[in-house]
């Protein structure tokens, strides 16, 4: 895929490395990204935590089966691939000492692009005020650790439900792997109402699935199509007719089909559903990725610009979903993944219309995830919110602004389209049947809106 940006390449060379260290400049490293056949973690993973660590007990077999080497002591002579700290048994803030005791010695022994995964329970389910405080504290710790980590390492928090800790296996494996390269400082909430699907080939978790990706002709959408295709899905690549040339190239590359349709057309959803049904026998995954920007200060935004952004980025999803979520649309157990943006969380000067649409997308996720009909059909709806991603679009931002956007995160670099795609593929897998209504930022723990 894409090469590291010029600065990242420079500070990883001999002179650049010394210079950056001396001057205290950001020191981004090339991130560890997934390639087929890669180990689930880059080195042994330390496990520890508070009391009898029930989550680790539930995850141990799955992690081992996936090929993760677990260790209870910080090993001599080799670097750790990661740390999984289980605080699910914490009942009072005093218990957080267990986390410090496990993590502090390990942090000094982490390898490049290592992973810290903190496992806790949902604060809202706490049975006492001290317990709730302890649970809530994990978020602050995880986010601080994320900022403390260097050399491409990340820290994320996974919240699990009592008795169904094993349901978090897919999430923990994702976080340990190179698939989560640019996911940092995030909280993953794993539900408990459905069992985790197992038996899927870890290299091709989407084998046999039919996926639709809108806006697939270029940028992030093209990499979503490639990543879903790599994971085994048959991909229907959708984009406007005018982008048909590059759309055809992407569709042929992933061995899928190209469907030239404007997502704002009244019959777009019906045509997409009909195409998936007649050509591929059904529809399992929908990724609403198509989007546009018409950036202007709100004071200078006319009705037409405003309407076009809202129509493409938000209203079209609602219209298409009438067909895509109908009985002959997405199959039971289907997955829908939407693309939001950190602009929709933090806001961005000159992007009111875009931020409105992308915040609205989060509203869609909340609404659909709570829809009893969809829940009954086992359909999950989640979103990713990309931060600064290296695309043709961000390459056009003026240099100074671009450099600031790129460095203002814990990994001191922009993400790649594939990083967004990996998180979408994660949501799309059968293993994530218990994950719905979540918005995960793929932003390298951007300082914006954190």
């Amino acid at each position, binding site marked *: 895929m894409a090469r590291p940006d010029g600065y990242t390449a420079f500070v990883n060379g001999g002179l650049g490395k010394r210079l950056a260290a001396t001057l205290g400049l950001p020191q981004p490293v090339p991130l560890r990204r997934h390639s087929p056949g890669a180990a689930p973690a880059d080195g042994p993973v330390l496990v520890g935590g508070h009391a009898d660590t029930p989550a680790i007990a539930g995850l141990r077999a799955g992690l081992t089966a996936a090929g993760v080497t677990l260790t209870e002591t910080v090993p001599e002579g080799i670097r750790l691939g990661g740390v999984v700290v289980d605080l699910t048994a914490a009942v009072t803030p005093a218990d957080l000492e267990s986390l410090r005791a496990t993590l502090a010695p390990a942090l000094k022994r982490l390898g490049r692009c290592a992973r810290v995964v903190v496992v806790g329970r949902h604060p809202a389910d706490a049975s006492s005020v001290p317990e709730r405080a302890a649970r809530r504290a994990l978020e602050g710790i995880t986010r601080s650790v994320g900022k403390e980590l260097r050399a491409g390492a990340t820290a994320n928090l996974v919240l699990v439900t009592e008795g169904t800790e094993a349901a978090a296996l897919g999430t923990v494996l994702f976080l340990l792997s190179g698939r989560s390269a640019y996911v940092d400082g995030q909280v993953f909430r794993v539900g408990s109402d459905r069992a985790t699907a197992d038996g899927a080939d870890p290299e091709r978790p989407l084998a046999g699935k039919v996926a639709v990706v809108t806006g697939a002709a270029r940028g992030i959408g093209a990499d979503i199509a490639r990543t879903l295709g790599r994971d085994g899905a*048959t991909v229907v*690549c959708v984009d406007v*007719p*005018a*982008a*048909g*040339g590059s*759309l*055809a*190239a992407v*569709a*042929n*590359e*992933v*061995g*899928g*089909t*190209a*469907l*030239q*349709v404007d997502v704002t*057309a009244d019959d777009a959803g019906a045509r997409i559903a009909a195409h998936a049904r*007649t*050509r*591929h*026998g059904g529809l399992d995954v929908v990724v609403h990725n198509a989007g546009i920007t018409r950036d202007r200060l709100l004071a200078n935004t006319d009705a037409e610009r405003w309407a076009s952004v809202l129509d493409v980025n938000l209203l079209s999803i609602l219209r298409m979903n009438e067909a895509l979520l109908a009985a002959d649309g997405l199959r039971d157990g289907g997955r829908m993944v939407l693309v939001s943006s950190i602009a929709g969380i933090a806001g961005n000067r000159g992007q009111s219309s875009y931020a409105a649409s992308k915040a609205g997308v989060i509203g869609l996720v909340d609404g659909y995830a709570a829809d009893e009909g969809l829940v009954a059909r086992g359909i999950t709806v989640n979103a990713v919110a990309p931060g600064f991603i290296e695309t043709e679009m961000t390459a056009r931002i003026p240099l100074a602004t671009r450099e600031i956007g790129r460095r203002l995160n814990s990994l001191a670099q922009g993400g790649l389209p594939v990083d967004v795609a990996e998180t979408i593929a994660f949501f799309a897998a059968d293993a994530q049947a218990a994950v719905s209504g979540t918005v995960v930022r793929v932003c390298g723990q951007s300082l914006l809106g954190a």
Partner: protein
Amino acid sequence: MTTPRRAAVLGGNRIPFARQFGPYAEASNQDMLTAALEGLVARHGLAGERVGEVVAGAVIKHSRDFNLTREAVLGSSLAADTPAYDIQQACGTGLEATILVANKIALGQADSGIAGGVDSASDAPIVVPERLRRKLLRLNRAKTPADRARAALAIRPTDLGIQVPAANEPRTGMSMGEHMAVTAARWGITREAQDELALASHHHLAAAYERGFFDDLMTPYLGLTRDQNLRPDSTIEKLASLRTAFGTGPEATMTAGNSTPLSDGASAVLLGSPEWAEAHGLKPLAWFVDGETAAVDYLSGEEGLLMAPAYAVPRMLARQGMSLQDFDLYEIHEAFASTVLSTLKAWEDPEFCRDRLGLEAPLGAIDRSRLNVNGSSLAAGHPFAATGGRIVATLAKLLHEKGSGARGLVSVCAAGGQGVVAVLEAA
């Protein structure tokens, strides 16, 4: 006539047609044919698949492109073990390719195939004068330095020069337009009638674009998303103001507006057996019913160069037991507006039908509202070998929209006094 099984038109793809020296000026035939195939492959999910065969061709062809279609297949996402061959029947190439693929499918010799065509009037081969060519070959044969020097010195400044190929008939030296002007005058085709047909072509094609008709028949190429020649806002006054381009004197009626421009482009059509279609989740748009070719003696002046379809159609209708009025749609290639009008007039003419076609009664008139309803070559442009694929895919989709059983007639005139025609029926 019954065939063992029916071949279905399953879909099509073309790149927008460009005017000569337009956006495709630097694109080769192979580039454009590959692009047309890639769009077809993507639309129908054929990446990595072997189809029965790919048949296509170009009218203006470089000698290096001896295996043009096979090379395009190798450059496409089709499986490398997909066979291919080139054909060339002037402007009838694309339709003839369709007939060939459909016949193999009907006979059970293939389950699927792609028919296509491409032409570039921009990236044309350049030929040196015959005298220079012989001297250059002699120079190439020379073995000793002395022989080489002698051969080189034999080339005179007057030998230098290039010949760009033109759409001229080799045996008459007349351009196609000049030939057509003779026919138009013979049939008394008026300037007004030609301009009206041209205007309808532009308006119909523009309307088809507006309703998104081509969204699943076309893949943009080199920045072009619509046919470059299309003039949606053309008016009868504008057309009437153009100077005549062919014919001489006050009798001349043919202009650049009612003649097709030289164009660049490519098209491809996917055909298959019903079983192959089913296995690929594809719904047949139309069945390929029959095809016929004819040629006329234009050298003696007995018949016009582009009148062969007037002979091919009645032969095919007789075989099928159909009348000219049995069609819901007619696609008559607009080489020139006067070609279409001369052909229609001939079919209405008792004398022509009796003396030339040997028919007791004239074929009669057609319902003109069923003719070229989405425009034709006058508006879209006419990259010679690509026109057949454009028409077949367009007609198949139109028939499918009309519903099962709807029939369409295709008629394409070609250089050398030839004509290729076919019948499609909605699946």
